[in-house]
């Protein structure tokens, strides 16, 4: 069974559209994250949730809205997509905040 799964794996869309990426972990972890990896491979944290509560929000445009319906799920909704949003988005989870993180396979978002 996949520990951290994300859907979809690829997402191609037009500028201005709204899209969502879903993430689920079956590890029983309390903390989940969203990261953005740009074309130069830099990985930057966007959000972190601990037990459904937002604990990190890193100067991300408010077009990005995370939602955690329960501690096993953390979804990312993006409004009014822009060209600069093109990147690979990774979901991750960890048992404790500064502990080992387990990453999903990534969602490659391409905005045309």
């Amino acid at each position, binding site marked *: 069974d996949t520990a951290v799964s994300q859907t979809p794996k690829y997402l191609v869309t037009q500028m201005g559209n709204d899209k969502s990426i879903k993430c689920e972990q079956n590890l029983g972890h309390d903390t989940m994250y969203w990261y953005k990896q740009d074309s130069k*491979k*830099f990985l*930057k*944290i966007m959000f*972190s949730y601990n037990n459904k509560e937002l604990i990190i929000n890193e100067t991300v445009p408010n077009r990005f809205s995370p939602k955690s319906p329960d501690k096993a799920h953390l979804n990312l909704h993006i409004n009014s997509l822009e060209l600069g949003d093109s990147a690979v988005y990774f979901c*991750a989870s960890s048992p404790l905040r500064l502990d080992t*993180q387990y*990453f*999903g396979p*990534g969602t490659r978002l391409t905005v045309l």
Partner: protein
Amino acid sequence: SQQGEEDPQALSIQEGENATMNCSYKTSINNLQWYRQNSGRGLVHLILIRSNEREKHSGRLRVTLDTSKKSSSLLITASRAADTASYFCAQAAGNKLTFGGGTRVLVKP
């Protein structure tokens, strides 16, 4: 930038050789972690070394940490073609991990 610096950015070696990559950071840390990313895949955790530890081993991997110099190194011994990947260090401080830019390692058979 609060991101760590990794050195070198890219490394090409022959199978069987050792690969060493370095990571420098700027703030005090709780721990430092190393991850591997194969092309088109997610990151996979390799080793976590705590701030009070100086060296840690896992199989063919050896990690050192020098908190006085704010630096860490990852050594892969007897490299294999399957070790071809990008390697990232991540500093755990405050309430988050901050990743470096990675070292791309190519192991030629």
